[in-house]
């Protein structure tokens, strides 16, 4: 979707994306020629269809930095954590049967970021359980490598 400033016949550029609110995104476009602004307000279905493509809207530097917890569209705004779906709450999440969340070293966290966002919470919970079973108080790269070896990966 592109936006055109009719008086200037000039393509408009995305300026801001507001945090999702009840499934609606507010995306502001501005005309670089005359400064005219418009806001695109999506309904939940429109938002969901774009989100289903697995994309994020807008450059990270202009994106909203916070959103209401549990908002299903937060994943499409750079810098905002995704809300867990039912499938992502396996084992009860950090406070579920796996016990309280462990600390992760920066290097281990960086590796975890390579896991697809949808399954990342499941990966985190499983690895923390693995670490806890071995008496570890934090997850570091040695734990990750040990898990790989244990499961023959």
């Amino acid at each position, binding site marked *: 979707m592109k936006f055109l400033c009719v008086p200037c016949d000039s393509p408009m550029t995305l300026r801001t994306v507001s945090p999702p609110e009840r499934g609606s995104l507010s995306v502001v476009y501005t005309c670089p020629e005359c400064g005219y602004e418009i806001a695109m307000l999506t309904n939940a279905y429109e938002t969901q269809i*774009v989100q289903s493509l697995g994309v994020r809207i807008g450059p990270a530097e202009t994106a909203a930095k916070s959103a209401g917890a549990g908002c299903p569209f937060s994943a499409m705004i750079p810098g905002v954590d995704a809300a867990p779906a039912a499938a992502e709450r396996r084992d009860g999440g950090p406070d579920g049967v796996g016990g309280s969340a462990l600390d992760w070293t920066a290097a281990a966290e960086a590796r975890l970021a390579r896991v697809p966002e949808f399954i990342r919470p499941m990966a985190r919970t499983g690895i923390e359980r693995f670490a806890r079973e071995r008496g570890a108080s934090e997850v570091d790269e040695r734990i990750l490598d040990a898990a790989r070896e244990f*499961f023959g990966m």
Partner: protein
Amino acid sequence: MKRYHEIAGDGGSRVLEQVADQRARIAEGLAGVRHLVAVGSGKGGVGKSTLTLQLADALTARGLRVAILDADFNGPSQARMAGVQEALVVPGTEKVALPRTRSGIAVFSMGSLLSESEALDFASAARGESQTWRATREFALLGEILASFEWGALDLLLFDLPPGAERIVQYADYLGPRTSFLLVTIPSAVARAVVGRSVAALSKAPNTLLGYVENMSGYYCRDCHAVKPLFTSGPGPSPRSVRQERAGGAAEPAGLGIPCLGTVPFDPELARQCDLGTPPAALRDTPVGRSLDAIARRLLDSLTPTPAADRTPREHGRPGKEPEP
């Protein structure tokens, strides 16, 4: 007034750019895979998943490096059958590691992530309208999996598809013409008719349709060691086809208009071992195992030769075996 195609870019939403990036990441992730083969059927319950795993094992026994992507996210069965139900998702230094069966088959299945009492669910504020976005979301997830996991250097990546003729076409579109298709049917006229529609649907796609396998083609009796009829209504393989197959040639097409790569009898022991997640290698020296080995050979014969995949050993992985000449 300017028209859509006269405007370069999208003003900063970067949606198309991100979709293109995803495609590039998928292509990069699969660069070391020689053959992509999707195993599908318009009909459910014909044994696609079982056949996929058994075929992977037969190919592995021939020295090939094989992985399975269980693309049936809503009804995953590979994790249990392959014995990787308890495996964790563990990120490596570059990509995410794949669990392996004892015989070395790498397997991705949502069944390793979701307990059998859970259904795959996506958070959405557009509930009650999932028909408008659900398939798109599932394909985006497939793309993330293809791009993020360590497929590495493989001879074959087998996709275990969900049932449905329309799903087969969607996967053909998403995976692109590089992916070849193998269909599965059973000797029932009803199943064959539905699979026939899949053949018709795929005929409009640029993908190669390698042929089909007739599963549950008879019943292997472990008492008398004979293969007896299981279905009596379907056409089954013709006597000539059976003779041809026994002589080592490919079975004859029997009504679907595409090559039949072979027939596999039903073996209750196979079903039991799938439930238990026992390694398929245990059945190699049985009528089922021999049928699958013959199908594996014909499958390899039917694949277009491609340049050898990178032989670099995987991170923490075992060095790749050389495929048979």
